[in-house]
């Protein structure tokens, strides 16, 4: 207990890290379930259905499978790089989540007032880009250390793609920086508060729509997702740079890819979609919006109970009503006066991130993939000039407005 | 608090190790990396002094050192690639056509 009183900041940070890790790992696991379900529905089939009610235990089954598979190490592989690469990928993907704030409120844990972010830095944006730019090493090392043709080609192609689109990614964000005037996420989101004509939110997506499109495209390419996933597509390069990885190391690459997806979506929310701000104005007539989180959870709870009781599978009949009751309980908690102002920020933040993740999965189910030379020429000859034009026009407008 | 002399000693040690790498290694690319290590050691000294005298000029210089190192690495590695293509080896002792 003395440790807690002598180092309150450290203990509170450790608690926040533990909570964030737990939430993110669960979200990762269920993001895979969500993706398989949505892609399956787009392709007119069911997706995971049998493992647990509506396939909800599928991530657990996948995790157990990955843990118990045989861990094959190619004999000619470079041991240090081979083992380092997946750890590096996952560690970096999770480290970037320490910089992302989910709400403006200041809550108090263990008597210590703290913000809803693990590490509040005033150069958070550029630190985030710096950390994700080291993630390229994981891909390059994985491809090279496997000492085999397909991983090497996949790794080099994948990392060349990541480097190319990283330039457009950072350039498309500079427009937002010019408007906001700071690297700090709190300032960037703070600059998006307020509404035009009392109902149109002042989010950065509206003046920076070109920047948003560039950012989203570059982000999909940066995280190696469809339509830019040639280096890891099964029909092209076996499995790209993670061909020779099995069991837990492959699972780490997998988790790192989804964690990168989540990070990039969180960043897009903070920069362009207003972060934790609600799209409705804050005036008196709109006070009903404070009950939206509670209302949403209660509706979800009732839906789960009804759907569970009417379901066909026995497991659905047992599990979903319990989940529904839990949702109702959490929904009631959100109406308590202590919790209600604090939950607004994270609710809207989560809703927007969820929308962007749905967009990611939707793109995966719908679009065919680029060929590699089409991909590179798209990145350098189209996206980069587009981001540069966005930057020039934005800076012109900012300077002219200053006069 | 950490006295500034600690930072300077660390910078000196890194610089010395960079010189050792530059003199004793044979692979051209490793020699290049030892040069980058020396530049990094100098950067550390600049940032430490900038903190000590509370001036920003040190940080500006670090900025320029990083930029120049980037340009130098690009051209240097292109030259290394041409050498490797022509001499079919990355050993610096094989680049000896102008030797007396």
């Amino acid at each position, binding site marked *: 207990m003395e440790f807690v009183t002598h180092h309150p900041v450290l203990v509170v940070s450790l608690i926040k890290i533990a909570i964030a890790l737990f939430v993110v790992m669960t979200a990762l696991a269920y993001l895979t379930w969500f993706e398989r379900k949505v892609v399956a529905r787009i392709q007119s089939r069911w997706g995971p259905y049998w493992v647990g009610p509506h396939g909800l235990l599928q991530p657990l089954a996948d995790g157990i499978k990955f843990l118990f598979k045989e861990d094959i190490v190619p004999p000619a592989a470079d041991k240090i*790089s081979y083992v380092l690469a997946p750890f590096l990928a996952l560690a970096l993907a999770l480290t970037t989540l320490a910089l992302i704030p989910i709400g403006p409120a200041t809550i108090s844990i263990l008597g210590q007032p703290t913000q809803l972010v693990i590490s509040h*830095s*005033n*150069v958070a944006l550029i*630190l985030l880009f*710096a*950390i994700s730019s*080291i993630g*390229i090493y994981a891909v*390059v*090392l994985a491809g*090279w250390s496997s000492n085999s043709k397909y991983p090497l080609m996949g790794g080099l192609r994948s*990392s060349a793609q990541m*480097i190319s689109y990283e330039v457009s990614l950072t350039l498309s964000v500079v427009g937002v920086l010019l408007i906001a005037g700071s690297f700090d996420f709190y300032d960037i989101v703070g600059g998006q508060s307020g509404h035009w004509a009392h109902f149109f939110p002042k989010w950065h997506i509206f003046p920076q729509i070109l920047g948003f499109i560039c950012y989203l495209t570059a982000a999909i390419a940066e995280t190696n997702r469809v339509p830019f996933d040639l280096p890891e597509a099964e029909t092209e390069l076996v499995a790209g740079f993670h061909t020779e990885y099995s069991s837990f190391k492959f699972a780490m690459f997998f988790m790192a890819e989804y964690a990168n997806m989540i990070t990039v979506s969180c960043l897009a929310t903070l920069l362009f979609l207003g972060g934790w701000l609600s799209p409705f104005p804050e005036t008196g007539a709109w006070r009903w919006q404070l009950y939206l989180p509670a209302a949403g959870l209660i509706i979800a709870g009732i839906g789960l109970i009804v759907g569970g009781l009417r379901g066909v599978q026995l497991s659905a009949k047992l599990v979903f009503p319990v989940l529904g009751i839990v949702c109702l309980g959490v929904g009631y908690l959100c109406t308590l006066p202590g919790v209600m102002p604090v939950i607004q920020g994270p609710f809207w933040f989560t809703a927007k991130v969820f929308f962007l993740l749905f967009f990611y999965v939707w793109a995966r189910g719908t679009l065919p993939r680029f060929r590699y030379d089409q991909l590179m020429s798209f990145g350098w000859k189209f996206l980069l000039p587009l981001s540069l034009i966005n930057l020039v026009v934005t800076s012109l407008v900012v300077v002219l407005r200053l006069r | *608090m*950490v*006295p*500034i*002399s600690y*930072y*300077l*000693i*660390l910078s*000196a*040690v*890194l610089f010395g*190790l*960079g010189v050792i*790498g530059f003199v*004793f*290694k*044979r*692979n051209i*690319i*490793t020699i290049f*990396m*030892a040069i*980058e*290590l020396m530049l990094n050691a100098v950067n*550390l000294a600049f*940032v*430490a002094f900038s*903190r*000590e005298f509370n001036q920003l000029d040190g*940080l*500006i210089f670090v*900025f320029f050192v*990083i*930029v120049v190192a*980037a*340009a130098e*690495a*690009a*051209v240097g*590695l*292109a*030259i290394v*690639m*041409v050498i*490797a293509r022509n001499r079919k080896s990355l050993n610096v002792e094989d680049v000896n056509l102008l030797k007396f």
Partner: protein
Amino acid sequence: MNIAMLVFIACGVMAIVGALALILAREPVHSALALVLVMISLAILYLLLGAAFIAAIQILVYAGAIMVLFVFVIMLLNAGEEVRTNVSRLAKWVGLPLGVFFLVEMAYSLFREYGNRAAATSGAAAPDPRLTQQLSMKLFTEFVLPFELTSILILIAVLGALVLAKRES
């Protein structure tokens, strides 16, 4: 022994271990990774010295772009295992002790000169929240000529690299 000293010692040890690994590694890829480790530990030291922007630039540009270029070239050129140099006995038995002596002498003189300064001004400093603004003001007013010159320098470097690395077809 406060947190700043602990972080300094940890990062200092990491940097020296990385530099030693750079010299002693047999594969160039391992040397490149060791150099990345050195750069990251130096970036943490810059954070400790209160220059957060420079730390981010160091990782973003130096460790994230220049070293990736190094790693690419090493992989493309298939730089194999390093040949062990036959270090002359003079260098080993005389050079190394002399080098250590030089280092000790430098450390002593540095400590004598700067160790007495009030340690309150140096060491762990909170990152200056206005550092980026102040740096950019300086960069674009006092140092605008070197800034523009470096942009031309980068352009020349890109063109030079392209021309040099092209295959004669």
